[in-house]
């Protein structure tokens, strides 16, 4: 690993993410959803009985793998830095609203790329929404909007999230009675546990080393014309596209795409929310999980916000279905955007002083 430069690692991480996502779909994960942090969070919320839709209740080993892969890599490369204390509640709610946006589109930025790579043209509106959200976020950063600086924290804070990862890993294998596992629907669609775990550990470790992030790659390009992470994102798309073609998962079109809907305007707005909020907290949902593994306490709090959002989107019916976005979901997206703009206004004033 030491022989590789950062752009090389970003490209390797992107390739592993693309190949891993399509391979996991091929091996049993839901179609076009080999890796989706928001869907997996909804599954986790169900497994922990935070929401009661049994068809969406399964403790996905991939989440544990990303977290622990990142932790081990950070420890090995001496990049395990325990920091936190930067606007924790703001981050919690931005994490919450990111999952709301993902639920209205039906997928996180990673799934967005996978859906595009598998030929789902309904994801084009989401791509434009994400690009617009990140572009807007970059403009605000340039205008002086930034959450307050994180501080160094006592080491134990950094170990809490990896410990939760270990605990969830034990739950996967010991299957205690309080962990729900659906036998039908998306919960029953999963790749073999050990394969999921192995792929996600590798992807998590490489993502930690490279800093791979979908929104981060776009943000860096918009802000500084810096392309290191963007190459990783492009490699992710290309490798997923090639493997989906090879494995027969490619299905170009608008109609008949799995877990999609035709509410393109709301898809655009929902992913604008995801892009904007992700720029404000410095990373997409996947990146938040990776950062939580490397000792970033703020990212850990964001992950708790994401988990809360994942439970709420199901119990409050915010999540879109194949029939389209729900009224509750639309209101939640608008509320999320209002929240983002209030945060932007407030923090810009702080920066001016």
């Amino acid at each position, binding site marked *: 690993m030491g022989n590789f430069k950062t752009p090389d690692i970003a490209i390797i991480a992107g390739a592993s993410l693309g190949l891993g996502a399509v391979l996991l779909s091929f091996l049993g994960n839901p179609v076009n959803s080999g890796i989706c942090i928001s869907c997996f969070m909804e599954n986790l919320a169900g497994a922990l009985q935070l929401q009661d839709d049994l068809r969406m209740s399964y403790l996905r080993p991939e989440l544990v793998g990303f977290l622990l892969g990142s932790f081990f890599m950070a420890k090995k490369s001496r990049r395990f830095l325990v920091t936190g204390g930067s606007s924790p509640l703001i981050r919690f709610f931005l994490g919450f609203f990111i999952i709301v946006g993902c639920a209205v589109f039906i997928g996180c930025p990673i799934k967005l790329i996978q859906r595009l790579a598998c030929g789902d043209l309904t994801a084009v509106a989401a791509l434009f929404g994400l690009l617009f959200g990140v572009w807007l976020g970059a403009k605000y950063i340039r205008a002086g909007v930034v959450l307050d600086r994180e501080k160094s924290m006592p080491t134990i804070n950094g170990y809490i999230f990896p410990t939760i990862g270990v605990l969830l890993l034990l739950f996967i294998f*010991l299957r205690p009675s309080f962990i729900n596992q659906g*036998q039908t629907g998306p919960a*029953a669609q999963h790749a073999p546990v050990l394969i999921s775990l192995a792929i996600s550990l590798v992807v998590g470790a490489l993502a930690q080393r490279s800093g791979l992030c979908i929104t981060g790659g776009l943000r860096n390009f918009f802000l500084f014309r810096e392309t290191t992470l963007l190459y990783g994102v492009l490699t992710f798309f290309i490798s997923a596209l090639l493997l989906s073609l090879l494995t027969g998962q490619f299905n170009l079109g608008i*109609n008949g795409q799995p877990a999609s809907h035709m509410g393109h305007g709301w898809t655009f707005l929902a992913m604008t929310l995801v892009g904007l909020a992700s720029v404000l907290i410095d990373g997409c949902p996947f990146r938040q999980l990776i950062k939580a593994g490397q000792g970033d306490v703020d990212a850990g709090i964001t992950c708790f916000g994401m988990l809360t959002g994942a439970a709420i989107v199901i119990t409050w019916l915010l999540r879109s279905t194949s029939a389209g976005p729900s009224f509750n979901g639309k209101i939640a997206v608008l509320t999320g955007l209002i929240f983002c703009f209030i945060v932007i206004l407030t923090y810009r004033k702080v920066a001016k002083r």
Partner: protein
Amino acid sequence: MDLIQKLTISALLALTIVTAGMLIQNHIAVLNSPEATTDPQIDLQKIYEDKISKNTILYASVVDLLKQKQFSQADSKLQEIEASNPDNPQSLIYRAKLQYGLGESATAIHSYRLAIDSSPDYIDKKTPLFMGDEIMDVISETRSKLLREKKLKPGDTSIDIALEDIYYLQRRIAGGCE
């Protein structure tokens, strides 16, 4: 190491040992319990088998009448069953088959949509109730028919509504995390 540290570490060790012991004891008890020996997958299969056998008996006459293309009698019988079993989504499946048999493809598609919304098991490959392929055959035939009709009657909104039902069913049958 001062006294406070020694006492705290001792308490920590004691608590850890007691907690671990309790967890192990409980886990062994759960493993030996009768519930642990039953596989939820097998339980679920049994529930489906019961459901299928009950439905086979309940709808036997409807199936026979549909096979004989006696649609009016099948309709009466189905209405009787629907009145006595209003929550059984299987009625919607037979209603769809009846409508399709009568040539009312668009209404049949809508009945399939209602059935799937009521019980997603009909499009879940992991359940024995799965009939996604059968519905897809009806969809393919109806879609081409409706697209032809749309060219002839471009202003007919009922065709657009029927096509929306078709596209919805296609998305649901395609799978994904819904």
